[in-house]
């Protein structure tokens, strides 16, 4: 049974971890969540990305959602912004490939070339 008392415990655990590290400005991951994205399954992609970021304990990574960016045929679309502010847009992302983007690009700075939007557009 989930109770608010459990949340207090989590709060205290996270507080301890926060004191141990400096939070640097890390990668940003933006998942398109316009009507077209939602219809293409973007919410599941977002959940998979959040799960992976949590699993790999990437505390300096920000995950967020945005509206439609006008690439509806290539939804779900995921934008990765690296620490230098450079943007990479991935298309037709799935839960599985979303995890790959976290593991390869966000964690190891290796762009997943064949999933970039520009590759789909040819």
């Amino acid at each position, binding site marked *: *049974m989930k109770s*608010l008392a459990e949340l207090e415990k989590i709060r205290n655990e996270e507080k301890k971890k926060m004191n141990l590290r400096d939070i640097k400005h890390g990668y940003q991951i933006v998942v398109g*969540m316009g009507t077209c994205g939602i219809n293409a399954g973007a*919410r599941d992609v977002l959940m998979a990305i*959040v799960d992976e970021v*949590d699993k790999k304990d990437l505390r300096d990574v920000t995950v967020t*959602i945005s509206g439609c960016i006008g690439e509806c045929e290539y939804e779900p679309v995921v934008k990765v912004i690296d620490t230098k502010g450079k943007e990479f847009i991935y298309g037709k992302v799935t839960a599985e490939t979303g995890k790959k983007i976290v593991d390869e690009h966000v964690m190891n700075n290796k762009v997943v070339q064949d999933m970039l939007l520009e590759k789909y557009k040819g």
Partner: protein
Amino acid sequence: MNDISLYLLDLAQNSYEAHASEIKIIIEENEIKKKLIIKIEDNGDGISKQDLKNVINPFFSTKHKEIGLGLSLFSDLCQLCDGKMEITSTRGTSIETKKTIITGYMNLDSINLLDFGKIEDTIISLILMNPNVDLYYSHTIIKRLIKDDNKSSNMNPKYSFVLDCKQIKRILKDIPIQDYKVLQWLKKYIKNGIEKMKEGL
């Protein structure tokens, strides 16, 4: 869209984009009247009287694009479920007077009614859109009382689940609500809470 949680995800984003600081999603399932009411209420910039006429048109949007499907699709769903959608919007100058409410009425017996789907995933997604916004989710079921000849009670049982992000933030204090461990906990808390409510607990 396949389920109600996805419509909510779509519609609530309008509230965020209208600069709301508080968004309430209020759901009431009345099994006696066979009515489902879904309300999305926010204190954002609102919709002008002029735009109110146009917002359910799929080829109208105030967001610098040519297509705005969210309200159009929700309105269609309500009508398919023998109901309707209503919109009211007050665009005051102070935060206390600003209120926009999208209300969807549906018949619980309609064969076109969709499942609710993963409400927890929708709420987590919305928190991630802007963690500074206070989201409030309330879901109530008014159940039909199973008549017992020996009892004279005419009370219909009412079961609710409420998630108030303001309350969550008070407990978290300086830990952000978008902390990933907090979000994982919230997902299970919401899923569990809604299941218990549906079981009548």
